[in-house]
């Protein structure tokens, strides 16, 4: 109660922003007072990132409407550097360290005036970094090379970097995404010290136990608006879940029901995917099965291991465990093996893992599928062209010709092109990673219809999607993934978004408790 009566240090009023006709924020009010940790919550697409980018100068003044005030005076930022020099610091979710430099150099990266002219005094850097670390209770040698640090330590280095400028407002975007239980405790200790020093913090997260543990106030965004603002006295996991999962614009999903008595198409036993570089991402002991004609969804937060399960089944990352396709055990060591077994994967990142920008539309569809279109290793031009045209028509890919340049296609058409590629071999099992990411509403519906059509033809589908509403609306069965494990399972009509959020929260609370026991 005492906190909320204090005058806000940093506040935003009636912030609205639209991206090419899509209203991302519709008049949001938000503020923080000194010494407060203010949680910013909401599902993917609720507008959290947009708000933070406005408060941080990434979206510069003029690209949004509304006002920002610091110390009661209106202020606007032209860039993140501008925000920083005004005392507003930001720790991004992705770790952005300079691996080849020492910890001290990273902490002071981009700062000037640490030496004489162009010179930098190494010892002074190390000494000052050491002081900051001591102040925060961080135990990292400033002379160590960042390349040798764990991802948790790197995150702490990034927080130290943000703190060097002595910010009065500090924004942390999902700071615990790559941390384990004890590391989270170390981070919280740092945040409590900053709190004691009067720093106002904005804490963006998906993890409710952390909100309960460290935050003083919480604002929940939904559909670009403030759904609810809750003070610490009224904190309650149920309230959060309810306000986050409130109904949005109803979407129509094509009707489909799980096939009865269909044979199992994909069966996964004790699948374990190692995490990258010691971070928690990965998956442990996954057991699941998908029947022919069934649509199964993997629900969970970003970094929960959903994508890793798909990549493991497709042989993109090394795995332990057993994969069976239509009852037969297959040894999958590479995507090549998976394809031979009748498994196809649509990757999430079109630019990085999907499109070949050096080849035209047609060749992008047939790449990897040329065997039936060639004779003695020579591509049969006429046959290739006609099968490309058939595929483009079937999936309604709008391009001027098979020779068109991929770059010029819209996101939706690029996605349909990739669908055409993975469907050309008529897979028995189709793995879809965020199939509607970055596509327009019309294509989204085309994709829903396509998914259901494929299921009706007997294809087994396993889908990862961040939008829970979409996953629940589309899938016959949902598996909830948290921290690399399947923690819950429910069929169509047996649960909604709230059930997923509740299962994830329960799993995280459990992990938190275990970690606390271990460290105690």
């Amino acid at each position, binding site marked *: 109660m005492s906190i909320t009566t204090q005058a806000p240090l940093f506040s935003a009023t009636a912030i609205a922003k639209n991206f090419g006709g899509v209203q991302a924020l519709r008049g949001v009010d938000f503020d923080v007072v000194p010494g407060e940790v203010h949680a910013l919550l909401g599902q993917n697409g609720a507008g959290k990132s947009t708000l933070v980018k406005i408060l941080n100068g990434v979206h510069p003044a003029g690209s949004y409407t509304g006002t920002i005030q610091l110390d009661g005076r209106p202020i606007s930022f032209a860039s993140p550097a501008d925000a920083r020099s005004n005392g507003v610091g930001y720790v991004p979710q992705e770790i952005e360290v300079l691996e080849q430099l020492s910890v001290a150099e990273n902490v002071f990266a981009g700062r000037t005036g640490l030496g004489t002219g162009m010179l930098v005094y190494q010892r002074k850097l190390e000494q000052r970094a050491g002081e900051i670390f001591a102040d925060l209770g961080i135990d990292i040698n400033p002379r160590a090379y960042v390349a040798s640090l764990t991802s948790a330590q790197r995150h702490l280095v990034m927080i130290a970097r943000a703190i060097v400028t002595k910010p009065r407002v500090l924004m942390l975007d999902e700071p615990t995404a790559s941390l384990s239980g004890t590391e989270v405790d170390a981070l919280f200790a740092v945040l409590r010290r900053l709190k004691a020093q009067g720093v106002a913090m904005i804490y963006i997260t998906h993890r409710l136990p952390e909100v309960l543990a460290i935050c003083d106030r919480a604002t929940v965004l939904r559909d670009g608006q403030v759904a609810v603002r809750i003070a610490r006295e009224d904190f309650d996991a149920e309230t959060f879940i309810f306000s986050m999962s409130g109904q949005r614009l109803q979407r129509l999903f094509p009707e489909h029901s799980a096939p009865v008595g269909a044979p199992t198409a994909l069966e996964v036993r004790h699948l374990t995917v190692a995490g990258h570089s010691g971070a928690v991402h990965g998956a442990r002991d996954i057991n699941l099965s998908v029947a022919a004609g069934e649509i199964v969804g993997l629900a969970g937060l970003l970094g929960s291991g959903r994508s890793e399960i798909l990549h493991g089944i497709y042989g993109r990352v090394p795995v332990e465990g057993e994969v069976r396709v239509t009852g037969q055990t297959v040894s999958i060591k590479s995507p*090549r093996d998976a*394809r031979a077994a009748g498994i196809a994967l649509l990757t999430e990142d079109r*630019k990085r*893992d999907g499109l070949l*920008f*050096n*080849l035209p539309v047609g060749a992008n569809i047939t790449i990897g599928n040329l065997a039936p279109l060639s004779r003695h290793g020579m591509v049969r031009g006429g046959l290739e062209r006609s099968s490309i045209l058939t595929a483009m028509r079937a999936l309604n890919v709008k391009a001027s010709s098979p020779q068109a340049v991929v*770059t010029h296609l819209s996101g939706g058409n690029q996605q349909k092109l990739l669908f055409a*590629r993975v469907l050309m071999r008529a897979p028995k099992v189709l793995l879809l990673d965020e199939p509607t990411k970055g596509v327009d509403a019309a294509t989204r519906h085309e994709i829903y219809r396509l998914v259901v059509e494929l299921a009706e033809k007997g294809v087994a589908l396993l889908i990862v999607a961040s939008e829970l509403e979409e996953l629940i609306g589309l899938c016959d069965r949902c598996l909830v993934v948290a921290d690399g494990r399947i923690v819950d399972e429910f069929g169509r009509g047996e649960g909604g978004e709230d059930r997923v959020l509740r299962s994830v929260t329960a799993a995280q609370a459990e992990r938190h408790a275990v970690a606390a026991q271990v460290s105690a």
Partner: protein
Amino acid sequence: MNSAAEVSAAPRDARSFRRRLIGLIAVGEVGVLAAMALLIAFFWLLEPAFLSERNIRAILNVVSFVGIIAIGQTILLVAGEFDLSVGSVAGLSAVVAAKLMTAAALPVSVGILGGIGVGALIGLLNGLIVVRLGIPAFIQTLGMLFIGQGLIQVVTGGYPVYPLPEAINTIGGTDLAFGLGWSFAFFIVAALVADFVLRRTVLGRNMYATGGNKEVAHLVGINTSAYKIGAFITVGALSAIAGMFVMADLGSGGTSIGSGWELTVIAGVVVGGVSLFGGAGTVAGGVVGILMLKVVQSGLVVIGVNSNWQQIAVGVIMVMAVGLDIVRRRYFIAGA
């Protein structure tokens, strides 16, 4: 109704014409061929002797040697890697073949196979180290450039290998047509085959995919390591063949065969629209590019420009060509 159709057709025509024009510019070979035609006309106007039979033959003869390597280098660049050791490999293969035929007194055919084997082996080594150990091609092949140069001295003791068996001199001296010999014939056949493979076969398409985005190629089931290593072996073997043709032409296993070729070859194929970033370019383009480079060098000699300026011209042309390549890529891969 008629007029409405015309109104809507007019901008579409203009657009399609513009698109066709852009498409034409996008084809690397057309631009380079046009530029080359202009340059030839320019040199010919200044000095009609530029188009003398002798000069044309001289240009084509030189192009046949470096052109053979350019074919391999184009394939390797398309697969997303490049090789700086081609000159050393050419020289080393030539002197090894020469030594096998003379000091070891083996049959000529064994000597030639030995030379090709050395080239292919070095290519395999480059490929394995780049692909499996992840050492950048720049470092690995630069290292191999020096190793090859050193090995040439080790094998020969610093002296040219001479005299060679009569059969080699015959290969070097044969005049098939227009004063051009076996090396030119091999160059043309190899270029046609390689161009066909890249354009029309599954192998070629997979090579473009590998060079365009290795991760995507892997995900669609292409064994990208095998393609890259195969391309390294191809460029090694073709370098060896080029080196041995020069040896046959000279009639001796000289220690300076191939020296300095690596940069000429890369400059040439890049001028011809082969992308240094992988996944783009054709053998035809690479070959035309190297021809253009040689036309410029020869033209500057013929019109009497100081040799220092010839080097400067080559440098300027290469930078301009790569600049053009980048602009072209930026236009087609906007945002990338």
